[in-house]
């Protein structure tokens, strides 16, 4: 029972956090965010966990696969991973 109460408290806190953030920010990406290049998103997001990868590491087809892996692993947004993948392939 104690565990159940704790879990409910955590879930309630999460819900409040999400609702507050959406209320403050809205869910539309501002122009400055939407205008970010693939190179910028590559530098910003990859470095969160590991060093930004060398575009020459994989072939274009391999980057298609690696990008899907990172979409799921790092919970990247669709726009981010699409731009990053396109950048890596263009710089390859």
């Amino acid at each position: 029972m104690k565990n159940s109460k704790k879990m409910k408290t955590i879930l309630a806190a999460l819900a409040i956090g999400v609702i507050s953030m959406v209320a403050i920010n809205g869910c539309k990406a501002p122009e400055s965010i939407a205008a970010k290049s693939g190179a910028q998103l590559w530098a910003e997001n990859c470095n969160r966990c590991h060093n930004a990868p060398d575009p020459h590491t994989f072939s274009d087809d391999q980057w298609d696969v690696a990008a899907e892996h990172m979409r799921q692993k790092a919970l990247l947004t669709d726009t981010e991973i699409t731009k990053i993948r396109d950048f890596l392939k263009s710089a390859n």
Partner: protein
Amino acid sequence: MITAIAFITAGLLLASGGNKLCAQKDTAVPFVNSPQGGGEKMLLAGEIYTTWQNTKINAFQGMPTVKENSFGSDPNFPLGLMLMPLIKLNDRLFIDVQVQVTAGVGAGLNEAIIYYRVNPYMSVFAGNFQPRSGIYEGIMDDFTNRYASAPIGMNIGVATESGIGIQGGIQCGYSKLGYQLYVANGPQLTVDSTGAQNGQVSYGNYTDNNTNKAVGGELCLLPFSNSSLELGVSGQYTPKTGNTGSPFESISNTTYAAYINYYHVFNPIMVRLQGQYEHTQTDNFNLYTNSADTAMLFKSFDNQISGWYLGLTLRPSGSQKQFISNLELGARIGALTPPADALWGGNPMNQTTICLTYWFTWKTPLNIAYDIYTQSGSPNVSVFSVRGMWFF
């Protein structure tokens, strides 16, 4: 039964009887079940690693100092290979598998997950997966671990499980949200008449021990537009962990974690800060010799485990000299507090780590680390280790 046969017969007659209602303009069926949106692509990724370590157990209560060194003898520093076949079946379906081969231990399946991307904001997944639970497990525990050794307070909560879930990332103004929600078999309670493992829970269960399921998830927030700061909380609740019909069926387990992951370049130094707190609690229970007996084998204990770590690394990434810019210096502290009264528990343990990393490439580190482990009532242990890792 007769009714069912009658319906099937009627259906077959209707379909094959030349009825005009069933006539179609074009009866050609070029392909069925053809993949949509792209061809199959595969990438075999993975990592190979080895460690040499020198361990010193200091003199304690009349016992002499013990020194030993070896290649990969410690479970935290294995000699091993991880293979990661990744398959993009089409634009929506993706398969992610991890197989671990560890010298002296054998081969095992870490993960086998299939993802289906429903829309830009959500993917559905199913299989054997490491639920998101903080920043260490499944994320910072391979070549991304800049301290070589595992934090002593981690790996106490949620581990690999079988189940289904949803996850994704969403842009919310200047900030971003990541989420994961899942239902899984959950942990199973260990009832051990020897007491050695009594009250522990085990993960990685391909079959469930009861009809109840664990529910869990994570929410991570990246408040800054440059994604430099990530804050996350995760939790899992399992109402029943015991075997069906046993007196322990309704023993519940709750695990939660909170973490921070931050990096920023204060030119020419890149600073990286990571920290995590984990807590897991399992209901208390008394263990009797049998259900009709009142002779107690093991009295209940406060079955809670908690652990944490906080680490900071500095990398002169802006240096003009390549050798210098490839170096990264890290320091980390952490602790583990097991149940004091359990036979498998004991006094709290602390860990201090200093590690110097040289990055040959973005994914090939050489770590030189020094760990000090302290625990009340036990000798201090220091470990000097060198780890080489190649991610491919």
